[in-house]
């Protein structure tokens, strides 16, 4: 097959994944909506009817993950390089990492309730990627040709996926906390985990990716050293990577050494996650500096 064929194949795989995510979205929506319908008192749920729908959602998301993986691989084959050269490619790989993080958390911590927000987030990401950010597949400029690029970017993307997942959970924490302090959870939220479990889960995820993010930043520095002659230059992208790192370090510190839990910790986590998003969106598109590879 030619490069162009692989590029088409990659695009089809993206469209297919989007269809699967849409199905998953509806499956999870039905799961949430119909476990409410058939209860007279708020405390009695009948999950047996909606369990099937939830299972379908999970299967769809796992399938979609496979398609996304294929899309990313085909993209790489078509361009003869690792598929992380512009913002379109970062976005599809980011969606892959995010979905992967969800599946991992699903297997490890039973977080199926996250299926709905995950499906929405991925659909939005892929939608923007394929409409606004799309660029034809092409080789890399010389500065991007490095093994360290592959290592740095893949570590950063995976970290990003997990950061966003942690943010979803922290946000859920804050919303539910709000309801609980006002008297009680609404019916749709009754089957979500306890606040304490959400708090623990957020911490677990952050503690898990913090070393990876540290590694991503260091790999970036090593790459910068070989491409630009300095390992750290306070380029806007580097500055914000540092800020993200400091923010998550502060989160870990606040928990472990100062004993922050719950609301304060969740806000700190959201703040840290938003510095990552800011770096990705703002600095890539509107920023100046050596890191503007968005291709826009």
């Amino acid at each position, binding site marked *: 097959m030619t490069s162009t064929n692989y590029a088409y194949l990659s695009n089809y795989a993206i469209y297919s994944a989007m269809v699967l995510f849409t199905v998953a979205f509806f499956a999870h929506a039905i799961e949430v909506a119909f476990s409410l319908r058939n209860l007279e008192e708020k405390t009695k749920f009948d999950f047996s009817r909606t369990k099937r729908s939830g299972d379908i959602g999970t299967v769809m998301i796992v399938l979609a993950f496979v398609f996304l993986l294929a899309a990313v691989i085909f993209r790489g084959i078509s361009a003869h390089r690792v598929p992380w050269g512009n913002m379109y490619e970062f976005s599809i790989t980011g969606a892959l990492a995010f979905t992967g993080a969800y599946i991992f958390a699903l297997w490890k911590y039973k977080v199926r309730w996250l299926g709905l927000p995950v499906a929405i987030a991925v659909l939005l990401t892929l939608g923007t990627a394929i409409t606004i950010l799309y660029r034809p597949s092409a080789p890399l400029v010389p500065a991007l*040709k490095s093994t360290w690029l592959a290592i740095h970017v893949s570590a950063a993307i995976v970290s990003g996926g997990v950061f966003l997942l942690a943010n979803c959970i922290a946000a859920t924490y804050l919303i539910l906390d709000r309801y609980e302090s006002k008297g009680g959870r609404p019916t749709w939220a009754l089957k979500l985990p306890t606040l304490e479990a959400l708090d623990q889960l957020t911490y677990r995820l952050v*503690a898990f990716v*913090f070393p990876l993010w*540290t590694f991503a930043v*260091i790999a970036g520095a090593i790459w910068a050293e070989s491409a630009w*002659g300095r390992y750290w230059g306070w380029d806007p992208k580097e500055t914000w990577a540092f*800020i993200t790192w400091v923010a998550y370090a502060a989160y870990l*510190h606040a928990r472990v050494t100062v004993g922050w839990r719950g609301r304060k910790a969740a806000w700190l986590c959201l703040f840290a996650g938003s510095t990552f998003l800011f770096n990705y969106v703002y600095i890539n598109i509107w920023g100046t500096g050596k890191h503007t590879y968005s291709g826009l």
Partner: protein
Amino acid sequence: MAITSELDTRSSLRWLWRQLTSMRTALILLLLLGLAAIPGSLFPQRSQNPLKVSDFFKSNPGTAKFLDQLNMFDVYSSPWFSSIYILLFISLIGCVLPRTFEHLKGIRAKPPLTPKNLNRMEFFTESEFGSLDKAEAWFKKHHFRIRRDANSISAEKGFMRETGNLLFHLSLILILVGVALGSLFGMKGDAIINVGERFINTPTSYDVISYGKLQSEKSLSPFSITATDFKASYELKTGAPSDYKLTVNVANSVGGKEVSKVVRVNSPLTFGTTKVYLQANGYSPLVTIRDKSGEIKFQGTVIFLPQDGNLTSTGAIKVPDMKPQVGFVGSFIPTYARNSVRGAFSTYPEVLDPRLLISIWTGDLGLDSGIPQSVYRLDTSVMKRIGLETLKLHETNNFGEGSITFEGWTPWVNLQIVKDPGKIYALLGAILAILGLLASLFTRSRRIWVKENSNKTGVEVAGLAKNSTPGLESEIDSLVKEMRE
């Protein structure tokens, strides 16, 4: 009086030290450092983009002056930024060193005594079966450190957590030391050389050079680099560069044996702690300029600077030896095209159909005024324009006062030469930091106690997990089960 005030100073100093090295201060300093880094990403920085800074000054002079007083254009070398990280550095040392010594002592010590009342602990259980011997066997099998007393065992596991944590924080100090060494003893410079030319590492060979605060000009390592070939490859469709390859002959001492090497964007040349990077490239047109009588007044290559991705390049040619003096403002266009909107421009970065566009000026070049001038620009304030021409390869233009011939071109490369003796420590620190982090975040630290109950008919078991990491409960279950068998 004198004594009490001395005591006061001393105790307030001690108070200050304790405040500075407290966890809360460290946390605040850490957050402050993050906040302080933000303005540097919003305003242009002199160290990265001096042109943008001067543009900013031109468009908002008032604001710029005010911002400049706050060091907003040199954030990362400003006194306030430096003071935050120096304070953080001190705080880190003050907190981590004592803990390290304590930890080292703790390695040899036995676990602490078993507490009196185990039933106040988490995960307290009682078991009718079991003996201390069986418990001890289980602890040994699972690599706990144990303290066996007459009727109890105190066991501890997860020392790696604190070890890793300390290693991580000590590594941060090492990274900061590396950064400091680099900025004190490093050096950085740029030199543009034409292919075919030789660069000798002395201060005068550089276009720009800056030294670390404790570094002198004399300590440049004595190497030489001759650029023998440069090849740039581009994507046919987009003109985007796909590879740059510079071939050089290098000698570790000037006049020493030359060795051929290849430099690419991601693979620099190395001379000890000095590295040479390929940073940019462009074209130098080759021209011959004659006076009215036909005598050659200038012949050679002139470096032009690229203005866009297709390497439309501009520069100045100055001929002070002619009377009156003559200067040219030029554009070199590697692959020529022209339209009514953009005028002449290049459509591809390789030289396929070159042109040299010149405007010709006579008068005073201003080279004797004593004010330093850019070699890439012509100061035409006291000159008169006498012509505007587009030359093809080998074409000659006669402009009355003399003639100019477009003979050819040579590629040039920009070498960035950096000496950073601290880099290796920063890298080492980074690697150790990751290892420490992994060890600390993925080790569970916990204590388990087993005690014979008062009438010796069974045992009491209890545990404590640091940072309430999960998993202890199942561990205790397995211990109890083992004792039962």
